[in-house]
């Protein structure tokens, strides 16, 4: 177990290195000079030189790359062009809001998706089964950026019972997390449903029944445990999707997280901020995948031996 953990952890290093390299070249290989793009046509040569200096765009590309990497190890992402604040402090300030929103969404999604999947897979009722199918495929097709405005319209405009925008108590969290959790839960439900239905046809289920184990125990202790494997993979992947999905959701709900920071950075062509946000989101994404990978061996002991 420890060896697996360490070898996977070591595999992260080249991955993180690659991510930072890609991010660096993404920002630095822009067609046209980013400095010109930012300053427009009326800037003087001195303005340009000053901005170049501030951005660290001096010297050869390779030396820029090296100093970028060195700064990265020191968690120095440079300074925001517009506010002059250190990007790292902005990132740390915004990160909790994004984590709060993502966690709330994933808990909600797992909370309704998996039980709904088990329920609609184990039913004999055709109506419930059809309901499961419809909700699954509809949820997959309903993007958060449409669901968000719908929820705002219903709960904030029509009934005026829930607030929109800004971070605050639980009431502020409801709409944004719902708009992420409903589609996400639908995908989880679909997967759980498919996996459960497949497991329920296996021989060991018949054996369990013939031993006189109650239905509920067969579903939740026997079938679900085996069906959970692909679902866990999916949850891991979805957390990653969620993190990137928050860029849109946070913009809609004016949620002060990494997503809005990135979006505003893009709008203002504040490249150090864009770079920092991409690096942080991509790193979290990689870490989540790492944890997902490890969690297999807890759920399925067979994985350990491989």
């Amino acid at each position: 177990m420890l060896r697996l953990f360490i070898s996977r952890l070591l595999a992260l290093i080249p991955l993180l290195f690659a991510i930072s390299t890609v991010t660096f070249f993404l920002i630095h290989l822009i067609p046209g000079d980013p400095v010109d793009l930012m300053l427009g046509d009326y800037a003087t040569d001195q303005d340009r030189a000053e901005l170049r200096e501030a951005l660290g765009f001096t010297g050869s590309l390779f030396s820029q790359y090296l100093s970028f990497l060195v700064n990265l190890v020191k968690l120095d992402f440079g300074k925001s062009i517009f506010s002059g604040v250190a990007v790292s402090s902005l990132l740390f300030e915004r990160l909790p809001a994004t984590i709060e929103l993502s966690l709330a969404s994933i808990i909600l999604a797992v909370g309704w998706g998996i039980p709904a999947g088990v329920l609609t897979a184990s039913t004999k009722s055709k109506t419930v089964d059809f309901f499961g199918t419809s909700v699954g495929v509809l949820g997959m097709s309903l993007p958060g950026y449409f669901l968000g405005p719908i929820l705002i319209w219903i709960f904030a405009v029509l009934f005026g019972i829930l607030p929109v925008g800004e971070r605050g108590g639980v009431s502020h969290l409801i709409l944004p997390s719902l708009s992420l959790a409903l589609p996400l839960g639908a995908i989880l439900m679909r997967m759980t449903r498919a996996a459960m239905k497949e497991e329920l046809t296996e021989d060991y289920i018949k054996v369990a029944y013939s031993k006189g184990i109650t239905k509920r125990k067969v579903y939740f202790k026997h079938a679900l445990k085996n069906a959970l494997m692909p679902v866990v993979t999916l949850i891991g992947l979805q957390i990653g999707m969620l993190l990137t999905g928050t860029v849109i959701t946070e913009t809609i709900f004016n949620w002060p997280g990494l997503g809005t920071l990135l979006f505003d950075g893009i709008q203002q062509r504040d490249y150090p901020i864009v770079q920092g946000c991409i690096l942080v989101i991509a790193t979290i994404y990689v870490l989540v995948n790492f944890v997902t990978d490890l969690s297999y061996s807890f759920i399925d002991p067979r994985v350990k031996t491989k």
Partner: protein
Amino acid sequence: MIKTFKNPFFSVGLLLVSIFAIISFFSLSIDLNSANEINLSNKFQAPNLVNLFGTDETGADLFKKVAIGARISLVISFSVVFFSLIIGLIYGSVAGYKGGRTDQFMMRILDLFYAFPGFLLALALVSVLGPSVKNLIFALTLTGWTGFARLIRGEILYLKEKDYIQAATALGNSSTRIVCRYIWPNLFGVLLVQCTFSLAGTLIVESGLSFLGLGAPAHIPTWGSLLNTGRFYLVEAYHIALFPGLCIVFLVLGFNLLGDGLKQVLDPKKNSVV
């Protein structure tokens, strides 16, 4: 063939996609400038017989804009899936058929692409390259081909051990010929299903980027950008957000249903539960 059309998922999906295909075909006759024409005395009209979807905040007819948006979305999704398929087919085939070190090396590169969240990469690329349909297609292809490559490589690893491939090799066929003539035709079903789901996924990401203003240039109406405009006028005119949003949902739903239907028809035993 008849069995395919009898599948309810497939036929409803096909119907939805066809409707949008027809709308976008007729949108070719709509002039972009006339669709964008500003007529402030006519703004925020609710849906009526003259303006089927009502008018937006500039007084322009929303239906015309949505129709043009349909064409943009379809063109982008199909181009992205087409290019992703071609790249994935070549990459996956080489990796899967060659095997060994080549395969290992190629898969490592693929892992790098997987490590980077696709939406974020597309977002960063478009924001750096600037909003244009071409850049959008490029960015989405760059993040979209990996799924195809991985799937195709896996299928080829499995297929190349089959007896008839061994026989074809023994008969002295070149590897290119074996891959193109004997392996690729067997991938048709799997790839068709993957393409439809991929169309749905691409559409969602494309509209999301347009929503953020990182899609097509501002003067071209897209579903995402219309939806984004509409959310600021939910109180005065909710229809501006409603219709583009519904279009996204129905077209994505159409592709997803097509995919589910095809999956059931092509592979009745495995994975047919939806």
